[in-house]
């Protein structure tokens, strides 16, 4: 087990190294001088401008730049933001990470929780009207652009019905002395709409996967045997069949992270959720290359880590895989 684990971990680290190189190359495709705008607007003195150039490493040859960059990544130093100079990129990125994780984690839980439940339901009631209706509506939601759905929900629940807040993560008016319970409740209220939007557009895939996997398992012999033994249907379903149908869905978890991260860029923009997605979108508008790079790196690391964890879960759950 440990050998497999070590091998898999090494694989992830190597892939991350490739990611680093790819991102560096993409970044350095910059034509012209990214700092010219900074100087032009702020009218820095000549010394300050030279210091900035040195800080961003623009005056070095490419190989030195890459060496510095790699060294920085290992140390956790991703450079300094152009737009929010002199804030460090790592500071900005880390400040947004909790919000991203909260939104991402909630969406993951909801998508898989609801998706699995509905998928099982569909498999059990295969062919009936509800099965078709669920498939069709989930596909329809899947086809909607997440930002558009977000706008519609924000308008309906936030402005029309005035039920839920439509922007940011918490109420700025909450005093510094409010209890943690009140704070948690406040954040939860703000979380509802963005999480609902992202969950809605992602449900279809999980539902479909679970339905297919369960249908396949239900056809297998051991299920027939369990039924023949006289076990109640519910036990057959949940204790025997579903366990085996869970594996492909766990595999889906690993693939899901990139999609989740992508969707969050748009939804965070719409709801002004202070996560990594909106940071990246703002950085692109501002042409803040170091921040875009830093965000891309962190997000890729998240994806690789998620994939690794999903594989570990798969490995731990399924004895058949261990033999492989």
């Amino acid at each position, binding site marked *: 087990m440990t050998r497999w684990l070590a091998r898999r971990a090494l694989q992830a680290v*190597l*892939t*991350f*190294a*490739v*990611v680093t*190189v*790819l*991102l560096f190359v*993409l*970044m350095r*495709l*910059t*034509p*012209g001088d990214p700092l010219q705008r900074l100087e032009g607007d702020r009218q820095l003195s000549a010394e300050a401008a030279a210091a900035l150039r040195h800080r961003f490493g623009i005056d070095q040859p490419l190989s030195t730049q890459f060496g510095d960059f790699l060294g920085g990544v290992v140390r956790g130093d991703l450079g300094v933001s152009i737009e929010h100079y002199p804030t460090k990129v790592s500071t900005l990125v880390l400040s947004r990470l909790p919000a991203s994780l909260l939104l991402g984690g909630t969406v993951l839980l909801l998508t898989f929780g609801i998706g699995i439940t509905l998928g099982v339901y569909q498999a059990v009631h295969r062919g009936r009207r509800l099965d078709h209706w669920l498939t069709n509506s989930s*596909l*329809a939601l*899947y*086809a*909607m*652009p*997440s*930002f*558009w759905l977000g*706008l*519609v929900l924000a*308008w309906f629940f936030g*402005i029309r019905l005035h039920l839920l807040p439509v922007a940011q993560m918490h109420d700025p008016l909450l005093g510094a002395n409010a209890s943690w319970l009140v704070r948690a409740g406040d954040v939860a209220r703000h979380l509802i709409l963005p999480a609902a939007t992202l969950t809605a557009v992602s449900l279809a895939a999980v539902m479909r996967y679970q339905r*297919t996997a369960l249908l*396949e398992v239900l056809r297998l012999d051991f299920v027939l045997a369990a039924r023949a033994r006289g076990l109640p249907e519910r036990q057959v379903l949940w204790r025997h069949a579903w366990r085996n149908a869970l594996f492909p869905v766990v595999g889906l978890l690993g693939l899901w992270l*990139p*999609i989740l*991260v*992508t969707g969050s*860029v*748009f939804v965070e*923009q719409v709801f002004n959720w202070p996560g990594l997605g909106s940071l*990246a*979108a703002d*950085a*692109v*508008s501002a*042409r*803040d*290359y170091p921040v*875009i*790079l830093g*965000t*891309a790196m962190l*997000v*890729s690391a998240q*994806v*690789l880590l998620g*994939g690794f964890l999903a594989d570990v879960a798969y490995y731990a759950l399924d004895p058949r895989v261990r033999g492989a």
Partner: protein
Amino acid sequence: MTGSLWRLLLRALTSPSGRLGAIVIALLTLFVFVAPWLLPDPSAMPDLVAGALPPGAGHPFGTDQLNRDILSRVVTGGQISLSVAGLAVLLAVTLGALVGGLAGFAGGWLDSALMRLVDGALAIPRLFILLMLVAVWEQMPLGALVLVLGATGWFATSRIVRGEVLRLRNAEFVLAATALGAGPGRIILRHLLPNVAGPLLVAATLGVGDVILLEAGLSYLGIGVRPPTPSWGSMILDARPLLTTAPWTSIFPGLAIAITVLAVNLFGDALRGALDPRSA
């Protein structure tokens, strides 16, 4: 090759959802490329004073904040979105087939190196690669957008093709062909590609839906298709301030995206089901 593809398509059309998807796609494509002759000019003179008018006589979808007919803009935007998606996916599938085929066929260090690269590229969410490229490019023209969308979409396809090639490389009919003196090019073209065509078609169809959503998203962020060229995504962006006062300005472009992507996904699903009945 075309024979098996035809069969695949016909099988896909036997399912009701596949039929629905195909019909909607056909209608959309027809409408979007033919209708402009019948509709008012979408780049007509902007009239700030008249502003956004609700759907009514002469404007079935209403007008936007510059009093331009929304139906015309949705149709023109459709031309752009569908063309961009179609071309980008074509590029992506071609690249994926080439790289995947090469990796699978050549094997050895080239295969490892290429697949390492693909692993790395797959770890970075596609949108972030696009964001970086847009930031680097000062003002990305439409052609470059297509290129960039295509160049970021071939990774998963290459994996699929590589898998197929690996599987078939040692199959009997390939060995037989080699024994008969067929060169690698002929083997690839006559024997390997036809087997990959099915999965490629499925990947392409589903990929179109992804690209439409991506392009709309980028346009919504203001960095995709740029004004004055209409695009569904940028129409929704422009419609944001009017959400409460003129909701039709954002409803119709959004519906257009949703219906198109839904149709494409339904048909792609049917194709996938026709390819591998167990996944239905």
